[in-house]
Every structure is written in C-alpha cells, then in structure tokens.
C-alpha cells in the first residue's frame, strides 16, 4: 500500500539517531558507582593449572576482588550449555566435555578466561590482572585441523583418547562408492574452508548491576536477542529465577551469529556484580575480541562426484573435518550437518549421497555460527565440484549446472537430510546473472586485459540456503494512547532495519501511518515470552509473519467493535486502508483502538483493548537462492587480484524493502569477498593466535570491494504467508565459490584449477611461478 508498504525502498527510521551519535551501545552505558573488570587470560594453548596467586594483585591500588574458576565453582555457578547429541554409526554417543566458565584444572586455548579482576578503574583492573600469577605446567598443543586426528597429535581431552568428537555419517558409503566407480566421469576436490573471525565492529562489552533488595540482576551487552542468554544465565549458570535476570541490548554493533552466544566473560561479570552488590563493567578490546569471540568456518572437505555420459550427477560423497575448538560451543558442532548438510547438494539433483562428518577438538577458541553457518561451506563444496565436473565433462560451467538443476517441476524437492525446497527458479536466476554480467562478451574484455598484461577471469556460482531457523517467535502489536502503535518483537534488530520494515508491514496490514509505528525490542523485561532473537535470516518470516497474524486478529476484533459502535452487523464491516466501514459509517483503526479501552463501548464477550500478541509458528524454513557472476583481473607479476565487476541475483522471495535487502546483499558479499581474498585466522603450531588485531587479520576494506550490481529474480516462498525468503546470508554464501571460479578461469592458461582461500597475492604468485617452472606450488 502506498509509498510505505511492502516492496517500497523506504529509507530507514533508525538512521537519524545513529547518524547523530545518539546510538546507545553497551560501552556508552555507565552506571553510578560502577567498578571495572579485566580478565586474566591464558597465554598457554594447553597447560595444567597448578595454582594461582592473587596476593600481589590484591595489594595493588583500587583492587576490589579477584575471582578464579574455583571461586565460581565454590559459589555453585554452573557450566556452559551444549545440547548437541550426535552419535557414531555404532550408536555410541559423541564426546561431550563439560565447560566451566573459567577452568580450574587445565586451560585449553590461548585467551581462555582464567580469572576476573575487579577494581575501581579500568586501568587499575588491567594492571592487577597482569599481576595475577598462575602456575602452569605447559603441555603440547594441537591447533591444526589437518593434523588433529593424527595418531601422535596431542589430545585436547586425553580422557577420550582421540580429538574426534564423533564420526557422524549419512547414507550408504559402499553403495555411493560403487556408483562413483561405475560413473562415466568421476571428479574430486579437496578444499580448505578457511577459519574466520566474525569481527563485529563493536568489541564485546558487558555492564552488570545487581540489586540485592529484590535479587535482580540486570545485564547490558551486545546480543542478537537476550531471552536465550537470560535462560542460560538464570537456569544453568547463576541458578536464579528467570524473572530476576534481565538482559538489555539497546544498540548492538553487528551480530553475524557470534553475538548470539553466551560467553564466559558475561557470566563472570554478572557473577562479580552479584557477589559485590555493585555495578561492574567490562570493555573488551579488539585483541580480546579476536581471542575469545567464537570463530567461524574452519573445515577441510574431500568431495567426490560421479556423473553419467550426459554430465548428470549420479552420486556425491563428502567427507568433512570440522575444527570445533577446545570445547563444544552452543551450535558449532551442528553446522556441517544441520547448517550445511540439510541444504546439500544445493540446487542440484543428486540421487545418491554419502556424507561423513568428523568434528574435532583442537587447542583453539571454539567455532560457531558465522554469517551463513554451514551453508557457505556446503555451497562452496558443491560449486567447486560443479566447476571440476565442467572441466571433466568438457561442458561449460553454465551447461553442467543447467543439466543438473532441480527444476520447478521437481518441487517440492526433498534434500537427503530433510529440507523440502518449495520454490526457486535456479536456471532463470543463473541466466539473469550471466546476462547482467555480460558473460557472452567476456572474451572481448579478456583481450583488453591481456593487452595490459593482465589475466582476466569470469566466475559463476549458484547457491541455495536454508533461512528462518527455529521458526517460532513472539510478536505483539500494541496501540498506545497517543495514537502510536508499538511492535514489541521477540526478534532483535542489530543493523537489519526492523524498525523500518516492521513499520512498513503495520502500515500495509493495518493502515497505520508509517511514522506512528515504533519498534520495541532488545529487553527481556518487555519482550514476548517466546523471543528467540535474530539470526539465521529469520526475522522477515517469523517477525513479518507474526505481525501479519497479529494484524488479522486485530482486524477481526476491530470489526466486532466497529460493528457494535456503528450499529451494524460485524459480518458486514469492511476494513481497508486503516478504516472500518459499515454502510455510511466509518471508524479509523485508532478510533476503534481508543474506544476499545472503554468496556462500556464493547459488545458482549469482547475484552477491552485492541492489542494482540501471537507466537508465530511455522513447520519449515525457507530457501533463498541466487547466482553470482564476478570478474577478476590478476597481475601475473605480483599475484594481486582485483575484482572488476560483480553481479548478485537473489531470489529471496517477496522483497519487503529492496533498499534494505540490497544492503544485506552488499554486506554479505563483502564478508564472502573477505573469506575469498583476505581473511584467515591463523594459529601457530603451538596454538598461539597470530591474527589477533586488524593489523594482522585481513578485514576487507573498501578498496577490496567492487561495486555490486544486485538484482532480484523473485519467486515467492509457498510456505509462509508473506512469501519471504531470508536475505541476510546469501551474499556470504555466493561470493567465495564465484570468486574462486573466476580466479581459476583467469589462471586456466597456467593449468591452475584450484587455490585455497584466501587468495592472497602471495599464493596466487607462487601458483603462477610453480606453473611457469613446472613445479608444484
């Protein structure tokens, strides 16, 4: 409806506040009388803790208290939660080590929190943290994913006798192996999916206050929605009643999956505030954020595909190693199976599938969800295989894909691990991307590059995602006395522009002025009981769908009230553009809302108020998909790769606000470009983190990015009422395989068919040198 309805490129409501310095991030919050926290962190990747001496630190000026793991244990603080329960094929359970908030006997990664120091000032806390003396017995460490399962690798958990968490399998390996052997063409790829630091720009920060009078603990911290964290803190960790723990995130400076987790620092700061009866603040710096925020990706994949004489896939075998770090984080171990596995084999029909996943422990910080959370890894495997298959079958990269796409006629299409894809026009989307990327005239541009001594390549990736995970969410629509309408959301906007999009939806469904709608979220004290938060590209479906369902209830009730007041049969009342109409009589929705507060104005059996809260539920996720076409130019003398053009075509179903969805695409592509070109978390052999600052870790900068032309091939989802498909993670999924495809196209003259990410100038240069001299890189 109109300029603010569904599909309009409405500018964001959030922006003026954020553009004028009025955002309220956690570090902007200071509470009268607050003390400051600093952490003692492990400098060892693996060491026994023989003892701790805090006496010198406690004597320093301003120091109030120091708590180590033993103090938390003595106070009955619980352990961090992990609900995964995978089994080996023989039925034996996965290895599940318990994770204390701060370990008491052994530390297992560099940066692990060992003690919290509270002092009057931040500087005093830091100085005292350096004076806390732990007595360690250093042990050999293992950080490498590739070597963690070697027989002689140090064991992170010696009691298990192995670093393997579990060997999870799907499918019949011998059958798939037989199909691969019998196949006309068999291709294989060996891939490293590089470890990434999610790196929201806001470093992690916690402010906690405790009111002993009513046993109330309030925590401010950047999150992706506080309810789950509140539940863990209350039930599992601090053992308090749920309603005595409140988590508030006013503004959060980026989430990307990594801000949805419960971290030891949060528990320790909250514990200290409760113990001391005094507000405590911890402001993490960037080094701490690198060491202790969970990392993403870190898989090694071996995959083989068999194809028939026509280039049609007959079988796929995939073996994945996943580095989970030293412990099991909340979701990390799930990602190959439930994040990526369910969407494998992507947009292609694969009759036979075998999948083996070996998550493994190393002496590194945990890995967990990061933008895409398993789907970028899965699509990277499939797309690298398709490029290899194109080579082997002597078909173009488009043709091999075309022959294997799941077609619209095959939908609903069930993947092996249980997703049912309802909609998608994969061939049409690929075609659109190739046309927009001027694929047919690429040869001319390559010639022009060659004239300048450059190698030019064009790359293609087609991908699919599963979005809208945990499709249950509470949403409330409340009519205020001043005529405003509040959306009280279980989701939590931390950059996605929900205040804008939800206002559009209320405007669309209820005819309320766009400017009169406001969003309330980010505080467990007033969010709906069911409040999962925002992750996994879920808010469009669960938040939007929730507003839609609440609006229907509001209209139905409004018709009864309007009918009563207009002396008409409610069945004859119509509702359009915010106006209830019966014959010649009309009432605006605001008039009905105001009247509904007065029981005397209501028909029998109708309760006062027009507000509605729903718990949105869906049985299924949705399946955003797309195609990227990218051109790169490589200087063979330096190995420097430049992205020269980028097209992203997305089918994210019905687009609620193209302006905002494009923003999601650009941002996702940048994170994919980062993975492909610059980003790599590196630990040395002893488990020391080498990339712990922006000096060492290759965050993509503006100059690494090219202008992205973003287009839509809209195929509305059939499984939710708005037809939406989550748009948040698509860019990060499509970019890595598209860029590596382009690189390999550029380096085809040298016979180079793969280089592992990140595609640094050094790696590219070495590969070219090796090809020139006939030696392996």
């Amino acid at each position, binding site marked *: 409806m109109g300029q603010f309805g569904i599909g309009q*490129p409405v*500018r*964001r409501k*959030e*922006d*003026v506040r*954020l*553009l*004028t*310095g*009025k*955002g*309220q*991030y956690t*570090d*902007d919050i200071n509470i009268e009388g607050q003390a400051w926290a600093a952490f003692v962190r492990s400098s060892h990747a693996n060491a026994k803790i023989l003892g701790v001496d805090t006496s010198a630190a406690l004597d320093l000026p301003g120091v109030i208290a120091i708590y180590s793991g033993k103090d938390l244990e003595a106070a009955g603080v619980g352990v961090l939660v992990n609900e995964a329960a995978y089994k080996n094929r023989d039925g034996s359970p996965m290895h599940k080590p318990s994770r204390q908030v701060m370990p008491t006997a052994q530390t297992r990664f560099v940066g692990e929190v060992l003690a919290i120091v509270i002092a009057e000032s931040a500087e005093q806390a830091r100085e005292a943290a350096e004076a806390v003396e732990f007595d360690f017995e250093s042990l050999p460490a293992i950080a490498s994913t590739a070597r963690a399962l070697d027989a002689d690798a140090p064991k992170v958990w010696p009691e298990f006798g192995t670093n393997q968490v579990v060997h999870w399998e799907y499918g019949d390996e011998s059958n798939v192996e037989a199909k691969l052997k019998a196949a006309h063409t068999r291709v294989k790829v060996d891939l490293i999916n590089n470890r990434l630091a999610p*790196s*929201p*720009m*806001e*470093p992690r920060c916690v402010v906690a206050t405790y009111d002993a009078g009513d046993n109330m603990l309030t925590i401010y911290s950047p999150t992706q929605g506080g309810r789950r964290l509140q539940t863990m803190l209350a039930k599992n960790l601090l053992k308090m009643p749920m309603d005595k723990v409140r988590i508030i995130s006013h*503004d*959060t*400076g*980026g*989430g*990307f999956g990594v801000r949805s987790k419960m971290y030891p620092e949060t528990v320790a700061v909250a514990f200290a505030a409760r113990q001391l009866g005094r507000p405590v603040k911890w402001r993490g*710096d*960037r*080094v701490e954020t690198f060491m202790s925020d969970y990392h993403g990706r870190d898989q090694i994949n071996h995959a083989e595909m068999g194809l028939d004489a026509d280039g049609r896939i007959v079988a796929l075998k995939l073996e994945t190693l996943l580095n989970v770090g030293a412990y099991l984080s909340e979701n990390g171990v799930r990602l190959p199976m439930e994040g990526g596995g369910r969407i494998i084999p992507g947009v292609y029909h694969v009759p036979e599938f075998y999948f083996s996943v070996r998550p493994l422990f190393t002496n590194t910080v945990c890995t967990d969800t990061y933008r895409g959370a398993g789907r970028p890894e899965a699509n990277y495997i499939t797309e690298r295989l398709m490029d290899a298959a194109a080579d082997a079958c002597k078909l173009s990269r488009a043709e091999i894909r075309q022959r294997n796409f799941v077609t619209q006629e095959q939908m609903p299409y069930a993947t092996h691990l249980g997703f049912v894809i309802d909609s998608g026009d994969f061939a049409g989307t690929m075609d659109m991307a190739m046309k927009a990327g001027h694929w047919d005239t690429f040869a001319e541009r390559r010639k022009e590059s060659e004239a300048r001594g450059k190698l030019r390549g064009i790359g293609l990736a087609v991908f699919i995602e599963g979005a809208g995970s945990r499709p249950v969410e509470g949403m409330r629509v409340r009519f205020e006395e001043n005529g405003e309408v509040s959306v009280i959301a279980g989701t939590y906007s*931390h*950059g*996605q*522009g929900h205040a804008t999009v939800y206002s559009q939806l209320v405007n669309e469904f209820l005819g309320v002025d766009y400017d009169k709608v406001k969003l309330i979220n980010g505080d467990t004290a007033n969010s709906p009981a069911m409040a999962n938060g925002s992750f996994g590209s879920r808010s469009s479906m669960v938040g939007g769908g929730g507003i839609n369902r609440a609006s229907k209830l509001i209209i139905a009730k409004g018709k009864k009230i309007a009918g009563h007041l207009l002396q008409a049969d409610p069945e004859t009342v119509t509702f359009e553009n915010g106006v209830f109409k019966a014959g010649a009589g009309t009432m605006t929705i605001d008039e009905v809302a105001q009247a509904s507060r007065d029981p005397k104005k209501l028909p029998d059996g109708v309760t006062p108020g027009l507000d509605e809260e729903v718990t949105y539920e869906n049985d299924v996720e949705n399946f955003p998909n797309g195609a990227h076409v990218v051109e790169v130019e490589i200087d063979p003398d330096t190995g420097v790769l430049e992205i020269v053009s980028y097209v992203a075509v997305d089918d994210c179903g019905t687009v609620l606000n*193209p*302006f*905002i969805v*494009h*923003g999601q*695409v*650009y*941002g*996702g*592509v*940048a*994170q994919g*470009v980062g993975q492909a070109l610059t980003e790599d978390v590196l630990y040395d052999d002893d488990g020391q983190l080498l990339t712990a*600052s*922006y*000096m060492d870790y290759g*965050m993509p*900068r*503006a*100059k690494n*990015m090219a*202008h*992205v*032309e*973003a287009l839509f091939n809209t195929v509305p989802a059939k499984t939710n009422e708005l037809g939406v498909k989550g748009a948040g993670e698509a*860019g990060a999924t499509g970019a890595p395989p598209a860029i590596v495809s382009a690189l390999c196209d550029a380096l085809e003259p040298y016979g180079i068919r793969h280089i592992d990410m990140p595609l640094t100038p050094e790696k590219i240069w070495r590969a070219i040198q090796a090809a020139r001299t006939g030696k392996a890189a």
Partner: protein
Amino acid sequence: MTLTVNGVERSAEVEARTLLAELLRDHLKLTGTHVGCDTTQCGCCVVHLDGKAIKSCTILAVQAKGRSVTTIEGLAQPDGTLHPMQEAFREHHGLQCGFCTPGMVMMGADIARRNPGADEKLVRHELEGNICRCTGYQGIVEAILSVANPDAVRKDHH
C-alpha cells in the same frame, strides 16, 4: 586542559596518557565517537581536529589543548538539520548497525571536502583507514560520492 568541542569551550582534568577518544567519551560523555580496535585500524573514532579528520584514539587529549574538535554530535545544525554527509548516508544506506558510522561520516565529510570531483576509486582508496563489517562499503562509497561528485553515483538501483 581546555579545548573547543562542537563550538563550545570545554574543560577537563586528564592524565598525560589520556587519549582524545577517552576524553570525549569518558570525560565529556560524547559517546557518539566509538572505539572499535586497539591499533588505529578501524576508524570508528574519527573526529575533526581544526577541521581535519583524525583518529581520536591515536592522539593524546593534551595534544588537542586549545584546539577545536568536531564530533558526530556536532556535525548537524543546531536546529537538527543534518549535515549533507549525514543526509547522504541515510539516502544511500551507508549504515546498518551504526557502530562504524560516526567515524565513516566524519571521514566521508573530510574526503568530500578535500576531493571535489572524486571518483569511486579514489573514495575507496581514501577509506583505507575505516572498516565497516555490515554494508560492504557500497552505500558508504555512494554517499561520499553523492556529496563529492554526484555525477559519479551509479544509477543501477534505488
């Protein structure tokens, strides 16, 4: 020490080691200036010192003694009218989570002031010292171009 912040003379007692960013955030409660790293890389803390963009995490507060600092809070007109660069960021979706935004806007205003007629490549180069994790820089680059050189803004979308 005394300095001018957003046109107003301000005084504060600081230690010799206090950084300008700390003076602004902790002493003067101007929390619009953000700190996102420890190594002068991210640019979230950019402010204007005597009209030029600087990283406020990388100079001492005392170095600003007697000088004039403009922060994100002081960029708009007193009546609330946004500075053209703030307006451009809104129009071109130059922000999502908003954390890098104050530094980006202050840097963008400086880039546009120094480089009228700038092209996209120059703007991307000039943003070397500012990191954004949300936007892919596209809206930021367009916003800065729209002020520095409106003709250079591509027209392939909204």
